[in-house]
């Protein structure tokens, strides 16, 4: 192999058909409301941990459905489970249970961001 000083860069494209659906299906079984998100961002805006970190539950939910959970799971490490997001969610999603369930279904990579 020749080193040209540059090489193929990994694609940034989301390939949703390759998403690990069994995992999401398991999450959906534990917390069926996960599909109710309308991406309004209220959770992110009101997040207690969001004052100090990049935490965005909206992004986490989306990333799970796009197979990019690795990028966002570390955010959940910062969650204090205070429940503000649950209070503001217009769809009435049980966000705390969702977060707890994500922790049981998805495994975070060992190296944290």
């Amino acid at each position, binding site marked *: 192999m020749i080193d040209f000083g540059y090489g193929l860069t990994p694609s940034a494209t989301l390939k949703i058909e390759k998403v690990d659906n069994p995992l999401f299906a398991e999450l959906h079984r534990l917390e069926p*409301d996960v599909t109710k998100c309308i991406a309004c961002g209220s959770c992110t805006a*009101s997040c*207690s*941990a969001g*004052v*100090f*970190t990049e935490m965005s539950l909206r992004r986490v939910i989306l990333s799970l459905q796009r197979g990019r959970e690795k990028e966002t*799971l*570390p955010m*959940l*490490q*910062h*969650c*204090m*489970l*205070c*429940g*503000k997001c*649950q*209070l*503001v969610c217009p769809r*009435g*999603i*049980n966000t*705390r*249970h969702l977060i*707890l369930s*994500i*922790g*049981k279904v*998805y*495994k*975070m990579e060992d190296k*944290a961001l």
Partner: protein
Amino acid sequence: MMKERILAAYDPFVLPFVFGMTFVLAYCLVALVKVLIQLKPADRQKFFLSLITPATIVKNIRDLFCDCLFHVKLWKRNKVLGYMHSSIAFGWFMIILLGHVETVLYIPERLHKLYYPIFFRYFMEVKGETLQGSFFFFLMDFFLLVILSGITIAIIKRFRSRIVGMRRTTKLTLTDRIGLYSLWAIFPLRWIAEGFTAGVAGGSFMTIPINWLLHNFMSKPENFTAAWWAYSIALGTFMTVLPFTRYMHIPAEILLIPMRNAGLPVRHTRKGFALAMLYSCPSCGVCIDACPMGVQKKNVQDATVYMVRNLKRRNPKRSLEIAEKCLMCGKCAALCQVQMDACGLRLAYRTSHEKEHNRIPADFGYLEAVDPLPQLGEQKVLYYAGCMSSLTPVISRSVQQVLKAAGVDYELMDKDGSICCGRPLMLSGRQEEARKLIEKNRQLIEESGARILLVSCAICYRIFKEQYDLIGVEVMHYTEYFNRLIKEGRLHVRNGHQTLVYHDPCDLGRGCGIYDAPRQALRAVGQLVPAAKEREESICCGGSVGSLTLRYEDREPITRGALDNLTANNPEQIVTACPLCLKTFSRFAPVPVADFAEVLAQNLEQA
């Protein structure tokens, strides 16, 4: 023949009883050893120490009599049920006691035979009547009558529970049924058996008429052995199945009471103290009616009694479901006859489940960068509004309005967003993670030099009280603090003459025992009317962060149920002292819902 049985002091019919009794004693002994071994060494030491501490000894004895024999708590709650339980428990206890007294008095050499005092009337013959003898005959028959009256109520209750004031009762298991029917059978059979022998062995107002009836009309005297056999079999059956039935609570409570009084925590879902609790559950079903989730039929199976049952049966799926669904309002525990730590059990389950299954470890490293608090004013009052209060700004605004009116100089701890108090994490089973938040908050508070930490959220208040161990800081809920300010004459309020009903937030009332301070303060600003059920029987608003799995749509009926309870006396306003209750009630309330501080702020006396 009669001579023989008196001389031999034995008959094969005693065997069922002897077997049952031996079995149950052995089982209890093993269970006792198991419980003690499973305790953490420190807990065990604490327990043993408590057994020789005079104060706890007194308490233990009092509790044993009041709870196990007289069922004082149940009397207070329901006279019929109280009578039913204490008649059987105390009556039986007295019959056993008197049987032994008789044996000691008359045939002390037979005392070593386990069965002798129980079947005393079979093995003795009255030679001549003595006053003492008649007295015992009378007492024995009297307590037999007491027990039989209790059994009668029990039978009626089983078929028509509403007559004794219970809406719902537990479903019995098969072994429970065997235990129950054998228990029902014991005393009527004893009555018949003693009736048979009353002619020889003596008797009183209960047994003599039966003896007369049996001998003259109903049976041949030869059948008496069969009657004693039946009595012994009923006893033996009851004893043998007892460890596998709810009647295990009878022996278990004797252990539970001292353990509870020793102040042991629940550390595991079915070991040590928890095991003693599981054994102690009488499956009475009081928790079913107590549970606020009971407004929906599908939740009935999630009451504490079923939690206990599933833990006993090692059904992890159902145990987890029940453990996670609970609102942790603590009402079932408050009403529980054996003071089961229902929330503790569930929390222990959640904790072990989280530890085992959570694969996203928490990281609160970012808290290190949080700035220290600003310098406090002279009075050193630090006000922590909490996460929820930022979604109910009326609370923090009103609190500050009241503080200013009372001339309190204070500092708001969480102006730029709060670090959560940690209770929601704890309730989710993340104990160690919660510790990190607690440590950070404690550091911030202690470094600020605060003397009073004022809290306007019941959830936060409870954890500050229970887990923080703040040195030199008095943690006060705003209901306590404002009540104190009014009493001290620092806060001047006027009475707006509005009728108010006060809702006891779970964590504030049952959690921390604060019932009077808010009521006293509210009486100063309005006319307080009672709710249908209040204080320790108050009903959770349904918004609790305690429940992990309860869906939004399933919370609404709970909220509506709680509102019906609050509005029983048509108040003009509902007052609560927790941001979560406020927000939850506001959604469905038929009358305005206000926060405690808001009501005070509206009724400030203008200087």
